[in-house]
């Protein structure tokens, strides 16, 4: 499918023009440029660098950072298997192997005919309907061997993905428990109308009174954040909706974006109304590409209804519009300063804070970064007022929280509860028969064992960005932590030493345990590594990357100890493995060809 040089050039020119030859749009440009041939050849890198007036290394810096950009040819069909622990529990590996066998292609490789490439990818946010895959960027849930065969046949007969049977792509919302947000009707424009009637100052007071705290994880008070951006000296401000939702096991923002987009966008407009920002940006994770077109449609609809654009609802001077940026496979881009770097076309390496984005964010202007759910919540405050909101939840955690429940339970999906709900209650509601553990807020969060199921979901007890992964009594919690260790090693941005190297060492030690070569010594090593990463890392990724391991060692030590070698220590260097090739070549297997330790 390679295009001739000339055709390629024209198409690339079109991509550059469409993006106003703005180097700040480099991530978008690379995404569109890759669509031409399915990968980004060196000439394209050079052409983009020239077209944008950048150094080649700068383009490479961005290009090499994101998992979904390819510097080598890929298959015409790129099939990526979501590899969260929940996908594994649903059997993704067997399906992967089945497909790999049918295509005759190994992991990470392209089939000899260039038709297909197969690989794994980090959690795609379909844990309640996994195992999930992405085919040329588009999500397919509920994979089975049968579906794998169906997809195999479609690919073999070269049917374009856009012509595949629609039912393959059907994604359920699985809303199991609706409360304040998911259960109420919303009339687009009503929240704006209420806020406009109050005026920006009074509305900000309501947001502060509600004590609404960010739903993206850190729990910062939204009103305070908005006020800081409003007060910062600047000629321009930005509102960013964080729709990166990369934390494995989290998928509530996906449901909000798909089924409640007018709430999300109206929340952004409200933030603009209060802070005086005129530009909104949605950072949508690459895995949610299938949401792009419907979201663009919704934006057009809102513009037509004067709920976005110039003089919103007829109020002169209230101008606000929204643009969607796509991510390209990098969990770290959920961290707000890495996200801003990515919005500016760069690799997603977190900035030094302070200054915080509210003072110096996107293009060095005051920028509010809010989670999708937080933005939905502010529409409630506009409609009900801050005081009414206060009554829900707990003292330090007002309102409701949406949980993404997956794993060993009968009814995985979306559950909205007032803050303060006990973990055990959620387990009962989702039909978890015999849970052994729950991982709350994803690999970066907390692992709770049975004795802790009485604890509450709230900032003051067990805080969460939403993930709630249930593990039944038959599960091996070492395997869970092992999966997470590889996730972090894969997703570390590489900027700071403790995380870049620490996550890699951690993953290797976990591999050693899995292979049965580790001893008590490695267990202590893991604890020590966690301390160094937790205290020294530049951002939350490295600071939490050892947490799940520390938790599971503390609470499920047996799952580790079963795998330990009955020795004090086994070296990382494996003499037998190192000699294997030489032995094969020389044909020697006699006792003198090695010094096997039979101890």
């Amino acid at each position: 499918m390679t295009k001739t040089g000339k055709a390629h050039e024209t198409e690339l020119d079109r991509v550059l023009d469409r993006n106003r030859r703005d180097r700040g749009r480099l991530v978008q440009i690379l995404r569109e440029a890759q669509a031409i041939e399915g990968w980004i050849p060196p000439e394209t890198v050079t052409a983009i660098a020239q077209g944008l007036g950048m150094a080649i290394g700068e383009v490479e810096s961005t290009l090499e950072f994101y998992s979904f950009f390819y510097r080598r040819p890929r298959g015409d069909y790129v099939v990526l298997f979501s590899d969260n622990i929940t996908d594994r529990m649903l059997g993704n590996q067997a399906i992967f192997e089945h497909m790999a066998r049918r295509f005759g292609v190994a992991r990470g490789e392209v089939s000899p005919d260039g038709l297909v490439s197969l690989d794994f990818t980090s959690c795609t946010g379909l844990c309640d309907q996994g195992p999930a895959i992405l085919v040329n960027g588009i999500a397919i849930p509920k994979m089975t061997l049968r579906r794998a065969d169906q997809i195999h046949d479609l690919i073999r007969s070269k049917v374009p993905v856009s012509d595949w049977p629609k039912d393959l792509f059907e994604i359920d919302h699985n809303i199991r428990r609706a409360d304040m947000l998911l259960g109420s009707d919303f009339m687009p424009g009503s929240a704006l109308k209420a806020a406009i009637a109050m005026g920006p100052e009074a509305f900000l007071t309501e947001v502060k009174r509600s004590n609404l705290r960010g739903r993206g994880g850190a729990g910062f008070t939204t009103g305070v954040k908005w006020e800081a951006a409003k007060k910062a000296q600047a000629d321009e401000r930005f509102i960013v909706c964080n729709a990166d939702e990369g934390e494995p096991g989290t998928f509530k923002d996906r449901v909000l974006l798909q089924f409640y987009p007018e709430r999300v966008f109206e929340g952004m407009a409200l933030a603009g109304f209060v802070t005086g920002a005129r530009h909104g940006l949605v950072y949508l994770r690459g895995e949610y590409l299938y949401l792009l077109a419907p979201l663009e449609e919704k934006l057009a609809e809102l513009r037509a209804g004067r709920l976005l654009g110039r003089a919103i609802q007829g109020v002169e001077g209230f101008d606000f519009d929204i643009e969607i940026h796509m991510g390209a496979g990098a969990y770290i881009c959920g961290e707000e300063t890495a996200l801003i770097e990515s919005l500016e076309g760069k690799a997603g390496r977190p900035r030094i804070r302070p200054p915080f984005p509210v003072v110096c964010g996107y293009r060095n202007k005051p920028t509010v970064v809010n989670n999708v759910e937080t933005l939905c919540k502010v529409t409630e405050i506009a409609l009900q007022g801050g005081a009414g909101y206060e009554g829900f939840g707990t003292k330090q955690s007002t309102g409701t929280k949406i949980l993404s429940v997956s794993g060993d339970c009968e009814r995985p999906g979306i559950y909205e509860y007032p803050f303060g709900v006990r973990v055990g209650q959620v387990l009962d509601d989702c039909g978890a028969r015999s849970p052994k553990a729950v991982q709350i807020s994803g690999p970066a969060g907390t692992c709770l064992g049975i004795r802790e199921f009485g604890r509450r979901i709230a900032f003051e007890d067990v805080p969460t960005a939403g993930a709630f992964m249930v593990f039944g009594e038959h599960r091996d919690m070492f395997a869970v932590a092992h999966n997470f260790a590889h996730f972090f090693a894969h997703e570390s941005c590489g900027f700071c030493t403790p995380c870049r190297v620490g996550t890699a060492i951690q993953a290797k030690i976990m591999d050693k345990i899995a292979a049965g070569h580790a001893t008590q010594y490695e267990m202590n090593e893991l604890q020590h590594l966690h301390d160094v990463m937790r205290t020294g890392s530049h951002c939350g990724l490295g600071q939490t990357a050892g947490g799940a391991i520390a938790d599971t060692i503390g609470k499920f030590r047996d799952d580790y100890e079963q795998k330990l070698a009955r020795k004090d220590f086994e070296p990382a260097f494996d003499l037998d493995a190192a000699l294997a090739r030489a032995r094969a070549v020389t044909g020697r297997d006699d006792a003198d060809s090695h010094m096997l330790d039979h101890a």
Partner: protein
Amino acid sequence: MSDYETFLLDGRPVRFERGQTILEAALAAGHYIPNLCHHPEFKPHGSCKLCTIKVNGRYGSACTVKAMPGQEVSSDTPELNGNRRVLLQMLFVEGSHFCPGCEKSGNCALQALAYDLEMLTPHYAHFYPSRPLDASHPDVLIDFNRCIMCELCVRASREVDGKNVFALAGRGVASHVVVNSPSGKLADTDFALTDKAAHICPVGAILPKRVGFAVPIGSRTYDVDAISTLAERRATEEA
């Protein structure tokens, strides 16, 4: 209030000027805090994390946290130095550092810190990365196997030399410095031996050619004095 402000570093008062980071103030006052990616002529970078300290009980990077009156900072403690040793071990195993065969030996900040913090072994299994040498340039050799990703060359070339010869690419352990030319080779850039970036590398990754062993190993900068002693002496001389 007096006409200057102070914070406490390991119990000793340190004077500072508003706007200084804890590291800048400490170094100026003759108190060494280990650091690798810091350079007085460049903006704080905060990536090596050797300078990790505790400020009022919270961990932070001395090179990025601003000094404030009354802060209680601890740096020279068994815990923090122990963690620093681990960070050094991480850098040693991540790259390939055969010190006896390296022209930078004795002048290398990584090696000097390892001596000063008494790092006795690399401790972790080596990664043995395979990063090709770049010997294309007539005057300068690059061995990226020794690179610690401090980005000083990137910053120096961009900000001082105005050439933008280097960039950091990749992600995670695959992070690596790239040369800004279509071939990826240094010879195809306008890099020159006179560039700031040619002399800023704290380790032996960027080296001038043809100066092997002008000073014998054993008599070089950090062979004679510990890196902390030197930094402290420099401060006294400047004062």
